[in-house]
């Protein structure tokens, strides 16, 4: 989610390389995020078929909310 939030879009292969995940593992995560409306994808064919993934507005808000929750947990732990 951090990677998706930090750039407009990511080709599948770049995400895979960055995260060091297998195709199957990564696609499972992305499908779940897509089903929840957090991630959108586009398929295009240049030299070869390429799928790029991007965070939706809903996904961005959800991720920020998640970060807020994490921050609260860290703060609570500090007290």
């Amino acid at each position, binding site marked *: 989610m*951090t990677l998706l939030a930090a750039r407009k879009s990511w080709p599948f292969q770049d995400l895979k390389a960055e995260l060091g995940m297998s195709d199957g593992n990564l696609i499972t995560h992305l499908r779940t995020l897509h089903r929840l409306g957090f991630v959108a994808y586009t398929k295009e064919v240049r030299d070869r078929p390429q799928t790029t993934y991007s965070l939706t*507005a809903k996904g961005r808000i959800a991720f920020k909310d998640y970060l807020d929750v*994490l921050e609260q947990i*860290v703060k609570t*732990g500090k007290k």
Partner: protein
Amino acid sequence: MPDQSEAEENLRVIRSLIERATVYRAISAPTALVGGLLSIIATTVIFLNNATEYGIGDRITPREFTATWLVVLVITIALNAFLIRREAVRTGRPFISPAMKMALRAIVPCLVIPLMVTIWFFKVGYLGNQEQFLVVVWTGFYGLALLSTSVFAPRSLGVLGWAFLLTSIAIPVLDNLLDTDFSAEMPDLVMGATFGLFHLIYAVCTWSGRSAPGEAFREE
């Protein structure tokens, strides 16, 4: 399992990554268009009033000059706020987003001196017909305000900032070099050229890829 300080650092890095990926367009094309047109209208009204041969009205006093431009500023800011709010509602983002706070943190310090100079002008400065000094301060610091957002703003806003800043520097030089019939109208004409013409050019240049005001992604 990360310890507390590590977790805090990770969160900070994630947030900064998101912020850096965000482009914040403080001035949208429609705002620039309306602001530019209002400025051209204000310039024309002041110019025609001052040109007594047309017999349109009395010469605009320094305070009226300042008040006219403040009205233009207020209308333009109100329109910009309206457009940002509309976009925020449409995309489900808060009106005062983190990116907007970031932009305000950069812009506001640059506007303190123009604010103080404007107050001084209303109280004392108007007695010395210091409109040109006021215009130099307004254009110069407005340019600096735009440039202060260049880290997270689209390149076009930086170019606009430089145009204002360089014009501000050039005003006293040009005033000394050019001895025309329009010397007395220099402050008014400069306001029309900068806040009017520059904003219209910016609006035309950014209209085709018209991005909404507020947050957007940085193109790679």
